[in-house]
């Protein structure tokens, strides 16, 4: 039971909005100590696992080229392209990206997206640009909300698309865990049962994106 203290540290730490790095490090140390690893062993385990997890940081290798393109006006260009397309509203831009992300992830093309290489330089400026054209006097909190929606469309698209692809990590993990319990499941059948939720995700989140358009335009007529 004591090892659950680490989870408690996480809940309390995030709830009172301490720096997440501090929360996670404390949770790791508390868990290790409560699990009887001792301070030296806990710190070594953390250090070893951190070093083994360096692959997680590799996504940042895109920053030099993305930064170079931003310097040359990539965000400005993304914004102009959308502004010139009258029918491309904020909600529709994000809906199209949601569909693209779901379909490509379902085909196993998970790398066709991401916050550093797609959302920040392209999708968020496009969604914001469309709102700038359609909503006079767009304020900062609305801009922030639109950018948050751009990130959400990327996440929801990839999560509820990738499981339709049979060779993705989560399908292989499911197969492995079930095999441990002596149950054989087929990746193709697991993938089929990801389809109903994928469709529901597109309908639910798509509807919310179109509602976002309505909310933005209602605010215009009210003002």
């Amino acid at each position, binding site marked *: 039971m004591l090892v659950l203290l680490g989870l408690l540290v996480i809940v309390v730490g995030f709830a009172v909005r301490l720096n997440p*790095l501090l929360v996670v490090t404390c949770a790791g140390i508390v868990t290790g100590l409560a699990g009887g690893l001792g301070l030296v062993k806990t*710190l070594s385990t953390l250090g070893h696992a951190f070093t083994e997890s360096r692959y997680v940081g590799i996504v*940042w*290798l895109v920053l030099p080229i993305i930064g170079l393109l931003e310097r040359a006006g990539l965000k400005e260009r993304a914004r102009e392209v959308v502004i010139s397309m009258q029918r491309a509203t904020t909600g529709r831009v994000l809906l199209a990206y949601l569909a693209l992300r779901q379909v490509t992830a379902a085909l196993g093309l998970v790398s066709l997206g991401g916050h550093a*290489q797609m959302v920040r330089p392209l999708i968020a400026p496009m969604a914001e640009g469309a709102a700038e054209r359609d909503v006079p006097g767009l304020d900062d909190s609305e801009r922030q909300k639109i950018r948050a929606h751009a990130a959400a469309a990327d996440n929801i698209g990839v999560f509820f698309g990738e499981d339709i692809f049979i060779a993705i990590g989560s399908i292989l993990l499911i197969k492995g865990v079930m095999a441990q319990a002596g149950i054989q499941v087929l990746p193709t059948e697991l993938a089929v049962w990801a389809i109903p939720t994928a469709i529901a995700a597109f309908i639910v989140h798509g509807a919310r994106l179109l509602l976002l358009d309505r909310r933005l335009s209602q605010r215009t007529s009210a003002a």
Partner: protein
Amino acid sequence: MITLEALYRLMGLLTGAAAVLNLGDRSNPHRIWNATFWALWSISFLFGTYLPDIVNGGVILAMVAVATARGIRPSRSESTTAAERSASAAKWGNRLFLPALAIPAFTLLANATIGRIRIGGTLLVDPKQITLVSLGLATLVALALGYWMLKPPVRAPFVEARRLLDSVGWAAMLPQLLAALGAVFAAAGVGKVVSAIAASWIPAGAPFLAVSAYTVGMALLTVLMGNAFAAFPVMTLGIGIPLLVTGMHGNATIIAAIGMLSGFCGTLMTPMAANFNLVPVALLDLSDRYAVIRVQLPTALILLAVNTVILYLFAFPL
């Protein structure tokens, strides 16, 4: 053979460049702390493989100390002004999209080809690391394309990368630290304890309650651990298989598939899934740390309910 180690060298050089450029930026009074943070990460990337585990643990503590006590503060100076960027955007037009789209295009191309390349009988790339090596190669190709097309000063991409790293700040390191936390949880046996508690809680003979316990439990444990992959074995071996498959004769395939998707609903709701929910907050310059989670919350809750109903209706014999 190209392994992840090559990519770690590149990341070490990138974070090292961020440290050096910060150190030379006299316009930023905070430059020492920014430089220290990126230098420490650079050490981890370049030498982590060779350092003792305890020293690597010390590097983490030092990075967390700098981030918590001092923070990372981006420099105010801009590389190009808004007017310059508009002029450049007008000059290059849609050609600006080419290097950006070259990243996914070359990742896919490399993914499909480099696994088969052999030089002198040995594979060019470690077969287990093809996806990540492909991404690394694609960023280099895109960068080369950017240099060739835009002809910027040689240091420009690194000046820009440093600007972006500084604005993302400590959040850049958080996903990696969370992965390490998962390993500590595993070493201390957190999963076993949670699974024992979960199994002892659920009343038998209430089918909808048992189904909800599994789907909602998957989401909740994912919220706590930040990762559906970590929650899946715990909840499936603790509740899914004993209660739903063995106890209620449910279809194991449907139960497992919907269980994982319920975990993904949890991923959308938690700051512990930092690379999805907190990193974009930093990248998009949002003032509310939980802005992305707030936007995702209604969709996540509705989809969790949908998953529960799908599982209840389709996984069990009538």
